[in-house]
């Protein structure tokens, strides 16, 4: 599914020696790829921004017992970042996400079921050393 990002086209933050520099081209970005590339570390750096940035909402396995769909329904104008998405998102919630044009999604997982996405929604995390820092970016999943 090709749709423009509803909330932001770019997100950047710094956490000590780590830099996040993400450019979004779709409203739903599925971040997949090998284990151990730093996806959950990147999530934790974005989650830190949630404290001061009202446009960021982060969800992970610590929200396992909550009603995730209800949380999403109450959100408006947010970049919603979901780690452990393959565990937390049921079919009903996935269908809701596919039709939600009020919020933007960054889903860390590998299962695109019921999100009505195409390969244009699939991305992987890449990192590069810049001086003493490690910079994380996203690129189309090959």
């Amino acid at each position, binding site marked *: 599914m090709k749709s423009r990002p509803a909330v932001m086209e770019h997100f950047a933050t710094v956490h000590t020696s780590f830099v996040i520099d993400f450019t979004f081209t779709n409203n739903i970005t599925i971040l997949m790829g*090998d284990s*151990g590339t730093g996806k959950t570390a990147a999530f934790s750096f974005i989650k830190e921004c949630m404290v001061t940035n009202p446009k960021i909402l982060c969800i992970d396995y610590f929200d396992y017992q909550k009603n995730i769909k209800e949380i999403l329904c109450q959100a408006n104008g947010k970049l919603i970042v979901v780690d452990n998405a393959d565990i937390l998102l049921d079919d009903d919630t996935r269908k809701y996400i596919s039709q939600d044009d009020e919020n933007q999604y960054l889903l860390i997982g590998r*299962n695109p079921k019921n999100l009505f996405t195409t390969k244009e929604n699939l991305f992987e995390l890449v990192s590069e050393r810049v001086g003493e820092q490690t910079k994380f970016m996203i690129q189309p999943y090959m």
Partner: protein
Amino acid sequence: MITIFKNKRDIPQDITYIELNDIFFNQNTAEKLDERAAQFIEKIDDARLLSKYKIRSRFDDITLNIDRLSTGCKTVLNVFYYPDKVFCLKECGNNALEVLYGFEKGFVYSEYAMIPFEMDSVEVQTLGGKKVIDDYEELKEWWEDEE
């Protein structure tokens, strides 16, 4: 070889199913780690096991607590150290799947196909029985076949 379930109802009642690999690893598997874990940690997370609870990260070459391993790596270690339990397969990347599919024993579950690009034999189990599959396409077909 590992045994794969595609439906929770197929898992025998005397075998515990673990969905959240992170928590199970942090609370149970971490304290069982020994030198055998090092090869998996290096292959999957490109990190080095320094001691029982410490790893040297691939990023920045810094020392981290073992809880910072990837979920895929934790899943592999859960299966290795607890081959009597069934673990959710869904958060494994291809690199973790390749290691997991090479194990001599262990149980995993996913309702959709999670197959590494290169695989050997695995056992699949439903209420109808067990069988061995050693072909990628055949395994994918089994997974997608709604019995």
